[in-house]
C-alpha cells in the first residue's frame, strides 16, 4: 500500500469506506426488518391466543376435549397452519397436532421463543389462562426466505456500488491530483543547472496554489545559496591557486639558481614537495566543494568499462610492485557503460591506492566487474590486509579521515571521500561491502542509466 500512487490509495480508501458503510447498513437493515417481522408475528400469535381463550370461555361447556373436531372448531383459523398444543394444569395433554416436536415444545418457558425444529425455525408462544396452557407456533420460513432475498440483493448490489464509488473516487482523485503531478514534473525539471526556472503558479489560491508559491520561495533561497557555493568555489580556486602557482614556480626557480648552496637544496626541494601536496589537497577540496554544490560536471561518453578497469589494474601493478602484491582481475569480455572515463579512473585509482597502502607485503588485490540483473554495473575492489575496525567503518567516507588517526600513512585523507562523491555524481553508490582480517571489499555500483 505504501508504494502506491496517492490516486489509487484515495480510490481504494473511499471504495473501502463506502463498502463498509453499505455492508453495515445492509446487514443492520436485514436484522431490523427481521426483528420487526418477528414482533408482528408475535402480536399475531398473541391475538390468536386471546381469541382462542375467549372461545374457550364461551364454549367451555360444549367442548369435548377428546374430540378432535370439537377442539378444531374453537381454534383460530389462520392462513398458514399453526402448531397447537393444549395442556391442562395437571399436565394432561388435551390436544396436540404435531407430536414430533412434543418434547422440545414442552420444555419452553412461558412467553415467546424461537424453536429450531430441524426442518426450519418456529416462533412459539406459551400462553396460560385458567387451567389451560396453549402452545401456539408459526413457521419462520417465510420471513427467513424474505430476508435471504434481501441479502442476495445486497451481495449482488454491493460490488456494483463499490465499483461505481471507486470509479467516481478515481476520477475525483485524478482531477484533484493533476496539479500536483504538474508541480512534480516542473520541479523535476528545475535541477542544479536550471535553478533560475520557477513553477507555474495556478490562478487559484487553494492548497495547490500555496504549495507552488512555497516551493518557488524555497527555490529562490536554494538558488541564492547555490550561487554563493559556486561563486565560493570559483573564487577559492583563483585565490588559492594564484599564490600556489607563485610558490611553485618561485621555488623551482630557486632550485635551478646557481647561487643556491648544495646544503640548502634539500630543504628547498622539501618545500617544493609540500607545495605539491598543498596543490593536491586544494584540488581535492575544490572538487568536493563543487560536488557539494551539485555542480560537478561529468564528461560522459560510452566506453568499455573493462578497458578502464584493466588500465587501472595495470597502473596499480606499478604502485604494488615494490611490495610484491599480486593483482588479479576478473572481468567479462566487454562491459560498455556511459561514464566519465577520467573520473571513473580517479575513483578506481583512489580505491586501488588504498588497497595497496593498507595491504600486507605479499598480499593480494582483486578487481572484478559485472552487470547485475537489474542492469546496474558493479565494480569491486578487494584487498587482503588487517581490515578496517568495525567501529570506524561508518566514518571512512568522511573528509580527512584516516584509519590510523594520524598522518603516518601518506596521502591527505580525502581519497575515499572523493571516490564517494564522484560515484554519486554518476548517480551511483560506493560502499564498504566487507572488511575483516581476510578481505576488505569496496563496491562501486553504477546505475542502469550508466549502462550502454
Amino acid at each position, binding site marked *: 500500500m505504501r508504494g502506491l500512487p496517492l490516486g489509487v490509495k484515495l480510490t481504494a480508501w473511499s471504495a473501502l469506506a463506502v463498502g463498509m458503510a453499505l455492508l453495515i447498513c445492509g446487514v443492520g437493515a436485514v436484522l431490523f426488518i427481521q426483528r420487526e417481522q418477528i414482533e408482528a408475528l408475535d402480536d399475531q400469535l398473541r391475538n390468536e391466543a386471546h381469541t382462542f381463550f375467549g372461545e374457550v370461555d364461551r364454549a367451555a361447556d360444549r367442548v369435548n376435549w377428546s374430540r378432535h373436531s370439537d377442539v378444531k372448531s374453537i381454534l383460530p383459523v389462520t392462513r398458514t397452519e399453526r402448531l397447537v398444543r393444549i395442556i391442562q394444569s395437571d399436565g394432561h395433554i388435551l390436544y396436540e397436532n404435531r407430536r414430533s416436536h412434543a418434547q422440545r415444545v414442552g420444555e419452553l418457558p412461558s412467553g415467546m421463543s424461537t424453536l429450531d425444529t430441524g426442518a426450519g425455525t418456529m416462533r412459539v408462544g406459551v400462553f396460560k389462562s385458567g387451567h389451560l396452557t396453549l402452545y401456539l407456533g408459526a413457521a419462520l420460513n417465510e420471513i427467513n426466505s424474505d430476508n435471504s432475498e434481501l441479502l442476495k440483493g445486497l451481495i449482488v448490489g454491493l460490488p456494483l456500488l463499490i465499483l461505481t464509488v471507486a470509479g467516481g473516487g478515481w476520477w475525483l482523485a485524478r482531477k484533484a491530483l493533476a496539479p500536483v503531478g504538474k508541480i512534480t514534473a516542473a520541479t523535476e525539471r528545475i535541477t542544479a543547472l536550471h535553478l533560475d526556472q520557477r513553477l507555474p503558479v495556478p490562478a487559484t489560491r487553494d492548497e495547490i496554489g500555496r504549495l507552488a508559491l512555497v516551493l518557488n520561495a524555497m527555490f529562490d533561497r536554494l538558488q541564492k545559496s547555490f550561487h554563493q557555493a559556486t561563486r565560493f568555489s*570559483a573564487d577559492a580556486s583563483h585565490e588559492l*591557486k594564484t599564490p600556489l*602557482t*607563485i610558490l611553485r614556480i618561485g621555488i623551482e626557480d630557486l632550485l635551478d639558481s646557481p647561487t643556491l648552496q648544495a646544503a640548502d637544496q634539500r630543504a628547498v626541494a622539501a618545500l617544493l614537495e609540500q607545495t605539491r601536496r598543498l596543490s593536491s589537497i586544494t584540488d581535492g577540496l575544490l572538487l568536493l566543494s563543487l560536488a557539494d554544490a551539485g555542480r560537478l560536471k561529468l564528461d560522459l561518453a560510452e566506453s568499455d568499462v573493462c578497458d578502464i578497469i*584493466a588500465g587501472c589494474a595495470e*597502473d596499480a601493478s*606499478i604502485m604494488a610492485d615494490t611490495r610484491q602484491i599480486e593483482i588479479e582481475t576478473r572481468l567479462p569480455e566487454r562491459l560498455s557503460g556511459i561514464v566519465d572515463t577520467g573520473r571513473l579512473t580517479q575513483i578506481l*585509482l583512489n580505491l586501488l591506492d588504498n588497497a595497496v597502502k593498507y595491504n600486507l607485503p605479499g598480499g593480494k588485490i582483486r578487481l572484478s566487474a559485472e552487470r547485475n540483473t537489474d542492469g546496474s554495473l558493479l565494480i569491486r575492489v578487494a584487498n587482503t590486509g588487517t581490515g578496517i575496525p568495525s567501529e570506524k567503518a561508518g566514518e571512512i567516507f568522511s573528509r580527512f579521515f584516516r584509519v590510523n588517526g594520524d598522518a603516518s600513512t601518506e596521502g591527505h585523507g580525502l581519497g575515499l571521500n572523493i571516490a564517494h562523491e564522484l560515484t554519486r555524481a554518476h548517480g551511483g553508490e560506493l560502499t564498504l561491502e566487507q572488511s575483516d582480517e581476510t578481505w576488505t571489499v569496496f563496491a562501486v555500483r553504477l546505475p542502469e542509466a550508466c549502462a550502454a
Partner: protein
Amino acid sequence: MRILVAEDEKKIAGFLRKALREASYAVDEVFDGEAALESAISTPYDAIILDVMMPGRDGLSVLKLMRAQRIDTPVLLLTARGEVSERIEGLELGADDYMAKPFSMRELLARVSAITRRAAATRSTLLKMDDLMMNVLSREVSRTGKPIHLTLREFSLLEFLMRTPETVHSRTSLCEHVWDYHFDTGTNVVDVYIQRLRRKIDDEHELKLLHTVRGVGYKLGFPA
C-alpha cells in the same frame, strides 16, 4: 620566436617572462582580456599563453573571438579551476593545450615548445620512426620487422610519442594526454611505463629512440 603572455597576476606574469626569455623567446605581456585580443589580432605571434580568468574579457572569450577572426596562433590556456568541462570547452574553442595552476615552469616550457611545432600531430594510422613501426588499427608494433607485444597503456604511450616525434613531454603532460588523468596520481607511474617501453623497443638495438630529457621529461626521436 615571439610569445604573447596574457596573465593578470603580475607575479606569475613576471616568472613567465623571465623563464621564456631564458629559453630565448621574445615576450610581450598584457594584463587583461581586451588587450590580449587586440595584440593577438594585430601581431603574428608564434604562441599565446592565455590565462582563463582575467578582468574584462576572460580567456575563453578571447580565444573564441580570435579563432572567429581566423587567427590560428597556437594557444596554451592557463586556468585556476581545472574543471573537466572548462578544459573541454577550451579545447573545443581551439586551444592547443591546457594547463591547470599551479603548473611547473619546466613543463610549461616543454608544452610551449610542443605547440609551436604543431604540424607533428597527424591522424595517420601507420606510424613510423626509423625502423620502429606501428599500425594503430591492428594495434601491431614491430622494430626491424620483429613484432613487439605491448600492453594497453604501453601502446597508448608509444602512440602518443610517435605522433609527436622529437617533442619533449613532461610526466604531467603524458599523464594528461595518454592516461587522461587530470589529477595528481602521486606516483611514478609514467617513469615505470617509460622504463618498460624502453626495455621493449630499445634494449636490443644500437640506435636508442626513447630519451630522457633531464629535469623535463621524455621524448621519442633520434639522439641529439
